[in-house]
């Protein structure tokens, strides 16, 4: 079947069409004006991933910003956010400190993105 998506590699925003078989393999990509569009479609359609950023609560009442250290599967974004929301961060915290290990079974850690006291 054909899947449509917009390339985000540059401001062109090429409208891409990708032929995908039943197993989800990308057979061909059209609509791109350069190789980056083809590569983008292949990753995006097979295993889209995103870095998740949100905040975690602390005892001080002010939240501390956090992120997943690597990109996680797009389908896991809400699981990751839910787990972070259930976590309370002990202060002081340093930028880069691990807040949640192996979040939502993605193998990726969540780290603080700011130091706070």
């Amino acid at each position, binding site marked *: 079947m054909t899947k449509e998506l*917009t390339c*985000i590699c*540059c*401001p*062109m*925003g090429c409208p891409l069409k990708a032929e995908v078989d039943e197993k989800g393999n990308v057979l061909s990509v059209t609509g791109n*004006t350069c190789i980056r569009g083809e590569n983008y479609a292949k990753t995006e359609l097979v295993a889209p991933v*995103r*870095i*998740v*950023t*949100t*905040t975690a*609560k602390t005892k001080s*009442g*002010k*939240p501390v*910003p956090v*992120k997943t250290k690597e990109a996680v599967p*797009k389908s896991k*974004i*809400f699981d990751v*956010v839910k787990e972070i929301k259930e976590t309370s961060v002990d202060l002081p915290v340093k*930028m880069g400190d691990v807040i949640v290990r192996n979040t939502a079974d993605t193998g990726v850690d969540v780290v603080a*993105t*700011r*130091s706070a006291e």
Partner: protein
Amino acid sequence: MNEFDLIIIGGGPAGMAAAVSAKKAGIDDLLILERDSVLGGILNQCIHNGFGLHTFKEELTGPEYAEKYADMVREQQIPFELETMVLAVEKLAGSNKKAVTVISSMRGVQTLYAKAVILAMGCRERPRGALNIPGSRPQGVYTAGTAQKLVNIEGAKLGREVVILGSGDIGLIMARRMTLEGAHVAAVAELMPYSSGLKRNIVQCLDDYGIPLLLSHTVVDIKGKDKLEGVYIAKVDEKNQPIKGTEEYYPCDTLLLSCGLIPENELTVGAGVEIDPRTNGAIVNESLETNIEGVFSCGNVLHVHDLVDFVSEESARAGENAAKYILKGSDHSGKVLAVKAENGVRYTVPSKINTVNLSELNHIRFRVTGVYKNVSIVVRSGETELLRKRSQILVPSEMVDLILKKDKFDGLNDDISVFIEEVGQ
């Protein structure tokens, strides 16, 4: 001690980068003034990633980018004063000194003096009052950046059902942020036929969460007496006028406005600096110096940027130039050429160049007036073409950064034009 070589107003990305580079260029007697209780400016509330690809060669979040610069400021022992508001900047008559009047709990009201001043105050959002949206004035209408601060810094809970007007990057980012915080974002309405935000943000912040982007649409009415109850969104015609009969009601308890940023130049105007009406920022020369000798401007207070990396780079140049001014004074001996924004170019920074003060590499930054596909960017002085560069696409939401070597300007006598040229089919 109220005398300094250099005072930098603003401790955000622009102020910090300017300070670090001035220090590196040999200025030890400097001071950063910041009105917030921390360094970092707007970056502290921009908890999303996508910062620093140029500067640090890695993808950082806003707070990480800010902390890296704040660490540099501390390592280099650059003095800064927080919770300090600057009330006025003034060049003293008959002297090259600048008076900077500040207020803080530590100093009370005091006047500080400096040989040079760098204006790095950033920008603020266009508020509802400037948008002329009819309707009542209920609670629940926020600018996107205010909402961002409330959610990310204060940990506040805003509404459950959200409409966003304007597709600026902060609005798009907040659409995703509100969704992750458990709210439902019904739509993002954009007056123009194109988004004013970056494409990647539309995909990652709207498409990922199934949030519709309504181009050529605007909010025509706001309902609710004390609390916001809903908004009417209508289609607009090519003159941006709402089309009768296309109004649709969106019940919501939160309306976020992401309708443009305005450089915060009250101090600048008060100091007598000339403002460019196209950018709402100072008119500057190749050294990012304003019409007042020794007063420099950089970052979002000069012109609104879309990438913090460009802010840092520009501000580092301002810091370097301020250092040069303090150590060597001004050189006015060269020829001054105007830099003119012509066909398709809305403005340029700088808008004049004194050839004697050029660096090895010189930047001309601009934004286009509309969407251009498959065109050439041309920089010309009389019959001499300084630069011609093909571009697949140019959009108003992406600032263009041209870099020209010093020798390109050799022997030029005519003003410089920057324009967009259609490429023959």
